[in-house]
């Protein structure tokens, strides 16, 4: 399984630009980690339910009451670019 990791491809999926050196280094380092993780194949997991959480909590509801939250100014307080009370995004449509 480990040899199937293609760091350059996964970096595209993760929206991360890697240098050629980083790609090469991560390929080796993560290959080692995945090789180590191969031992999970030994475990018999038949009939075992997957645990997303250690403490099963389901369907948590809160009261449907209005309450104060961020003002626009607060929400924008860390925005790298803003104008007219809005976030400025990079052009999406060509």
């Amino acid at each position, binding site marked *: 399984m480990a040899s199937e990791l293609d760091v350059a491809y996964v970096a595209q999926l993760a929206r991360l630009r890697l240098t050629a050196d980083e790609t090469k280094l991560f390929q080796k380092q993560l290959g080692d980690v995945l090789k180590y993780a191969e031992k999970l194949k030994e475990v018999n*997991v038949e009939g075992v339910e997957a645990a997303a959480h250690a403490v099963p*909590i389901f369907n948590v509801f809160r009261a449907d009451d209005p309450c104060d939250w961020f003002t626009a100014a607060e929400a924008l307080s860390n925005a790298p670019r803003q104008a007219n009370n809005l976030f400025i995004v990079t052009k999406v449509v060509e």
Partner: protein
Amino acid sequence: MTKRDLPALSIIELRDFLRRGEISPSETLQALEERIDAVDPEIGAYLVHDFATAMAEAEKTDVSLPLGGIPIAIKDLINVEGQQCTCASKILRGYRAPYSATVIEKLRGHGAIPFGRMNMDEFAMGSSTENSSVQVTRNPWDLSRVPGGSSGGSAAAVAADIAFGALGTDTGGSIRQPAALSGIVGFKPSYGRVSRFGLVAFASSLDQIGPLTKTVHDSALLMNAIAGHDSHDSTSLNAPVPDYTKNLGRDLKGIRIGLPKEYMIEGVDPAVKSAVIAAVKQLGELGAEIIEVSLPHTDYAISVYYILATAEASANLARFDGVRYGHRAENVSSLFDHYARTRAEGFGAEVKRRIILGTYVLSSGYYDAYYLRAQKVRELIRQDFVREFEKVEALVSPTSPSPAFKLGEKTTDPLQMYLADIFTNAANLAGICGISVPCGFAQSKNGKTLPIGLQLLGKALDEARIFQIAHAYEQSTDWHKARPVIEPIAA
């Protein structure tokens, strides 16, 4: 007591001085600030600390409250309104929190003063604090060594008497391991015991906020402040919060403590092994019954952990897109270029590695083989604990397989760094609580004394019992009284 000695006090001791009116909260902060100025240039625990704001808070604090006037240092990933919260990452440089985390509101409700932003591994990813994008933090016992991580700034500050207590976070051992390596007490609450609202998420099914302190009693006192249900965190447990100090001082008669045979493995440093064996004997002499137990899936915990934690991290860190907050790349050629360069410029190497690994194990074709399988093995690990906790009240082990390692020793080999978490990961996977308490010292080749930590694990929501056992052990030894002599490295 002179003002110079003041920073060496435990929280309980300081509280008594404050309540008797022998010192004021302002004098306390002043004395702490002076010691930070004198010592922290050697340690590098604080990223920033805003003395003026804390002084204004100190002047208004009510010393009759349980933590009235006590400054508490905060790991730089817990939001305090108006203060920086950078996770020691370039991508959040300059970020100011527009609101406070629930734990901060709770600390303030108990009279404490959040003071200082503590260094950490970037986004809490690491075991040595070397992944900080800002600065190195050094172990007060030997400045050529790491303080552990990821809450290394919090741990080193408490160990060096430049913080009375601190909050950290523990996703795979990030409170307990630095506490062990720095010779202090570190507590990881059961999953859901402490609200995560206002904590920057790393791995949401594993993260918990907890205290780093000089003593077990101080740890219980901080837990009294921060534990409890929070409607802002849907994973927080709606269970009553006991007084965690109530069992302190009780003996250990009738308490059964399990020694997992899988934890006394090869590769554990001989000094760590002998210190832990002595500590187990001591627990027996205090009245506990020691029973050998078995956690057969122990060997898989690190693999499971690094698959699940990176998967969750890759999803959580998708929010850093350079639009709403944080770093944003300049002169981008396309939307893809905007995202890819923003993230490449903002994240450090370890964060990038984990995003890649997490994205891979969640990607089509590999999800079942890695992520889903890891979740199933996680369940088997959890069941190991549930089964053994029917026979015993607590489990005992080393916190870390070795004392503090040298700066730079493991940075080029991520797998070796991951293996440093071997005894701590499983508690996060199983959602149980755990503590590290000082249990001895190792002598290093360069003539330094390096602390060793004893880990005690308890059932989910059984933190009061773990505090009882840890306190009984601590009070029967002198390990926690030893303080490092901070010696600058010869140039």
